[in-house]
């Protein structure tokens, strides 16, 4: 049990990173992590030896997130940045500044965001991602392709000023 607890504790920073990127909000992200830890704790005895702690914890987090979305759908809709008057029309020069990325991520569908982050940020394999989200690997792949394509467009990677961007790349 000791090693299991240590394994869980060791995953907390990664869970927080994912939750923050997924939800785009610090407070909500930490609420989700708190719930995830509570549930993980309660289920620790059911954890089979050899189970990958990362996959197991991300599954718990995902299920709680989905439950939360269901509950939320009965509440008034989320107030988007656009309705708060946040200017979206002028992407910053490098197109990849943190705020732009946050914003672009939030413009993906939740399903796309999950796979883009689990694979691209957390480095989970397609098979692990499929298990965490409880969907077929083929679905992971199609959501990934669509999500990244959307990000490319949003981040002005596609069809933008390629020469300008190329020089920025070199500067970086």
């Amino acid at each position, binding site marked *: 049990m000791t090693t299991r607890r*240590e394994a869980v504790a060791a995953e907390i920073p990664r869970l927080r*990173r994912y939750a923050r990127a997924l939800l785009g909000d610090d407070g909500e992200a*930490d609420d989700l992590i708190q719930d995830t830890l509570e549930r993980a704790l309660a289920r620790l005895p059911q954890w089979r030896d050899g189970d990958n702690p990362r996959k197991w914890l991300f599954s718990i987090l995902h299920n709680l997130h989905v439950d939360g979305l269901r509950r939320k759908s009965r509440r008034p809709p989320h107030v988007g940045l656009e309705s708060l008057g946040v200017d979206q029309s002028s992407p910053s020069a490098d197109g990849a500044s*943190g705020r732009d990325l946050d914003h672009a991520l939030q413009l993906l569908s939740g399903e796309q965001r999950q796979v883009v982050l689990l694979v691209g940020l957390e480095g989970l394999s397609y098979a692990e991602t499929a298990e965490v989200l409880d969907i077929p690997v083929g679905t992971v792949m199609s959501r990934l392709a669509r999500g990244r394509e959307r990000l490319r467009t949003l981040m002005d990677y596609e069809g933008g000023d390629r020469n300008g961007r190329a020089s920025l790349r070199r500067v970086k």
Partner: protein
Amino acid sequence: MMAPRRSSESELHAFVDGELTADERAEVEAALASSPQALELVRDVREINDALRQRYAGRLSEPLPPALHKPLARLGRRPVAPFATLARWAAAAAVVMAAGAAGYGARGLLAETRRSEAAFVTTALGAHTVYVPEVRHPVEVKADEAHLVRWLAKRVGADVRAPALGSLGWRLMGGRLLPDQGLPAAQFMYEDASGRRLTLYVRKETGLNNTSFRFHEKDGFGAFYWIDRPLAYALSGRLSRDELMNLANVVYAQLEAQEAGKASGGQAQ
């Protein structure tokens, strides 16, 4: 490439994500040479992944917010939690009763407690600043001598442990035994690759109540200290408050996990 466009796009993603076999990789690499569009996609996806990691990298090193301390502590303490909670309630009740009986004497009690905690962290930080600059004799017993922890635990008279901080880049150098107001105390010293040093000071403490993390700072040295009876701990170093806090979190989680492992008959070393 021979494959239809749709599957070829997925293949490019799989290429970036390391999902292909060596043969498939070679095929994609060959295709990339003749397709600027495919190359562009591969580059963009890599850039997106880099940007994501960069954007959220802070999460991996920053200290955990207070809201997460409770589940984190329970993560280590669960099997003993009901008793610990009971003991804490009993202690609280005793304080309330004492306060009721003695009127405003409670204020004196609190002040006394604060003074003792202050004395503890001052001594710990003092020991840190005395021994950390030592070049030839920073520690009394080196970490590679197996009896270090056993010896210190025996002398301090409690289950003292040296947390493993190697994954955070801190190597245990060793430890020493110190006098603290007539009581034995243990000091473990750690060093990172850049030569910075960190000490964990541990002493038996049964008089004061358990505390959460407290921070103390003096002359550029910082210390997080806490009491988790029967021991009091202070983690000191010339580090930023955030970095020290993060380390304190890890130390605390490890000690708790070992404690819980022991209580549940687990295999804590």
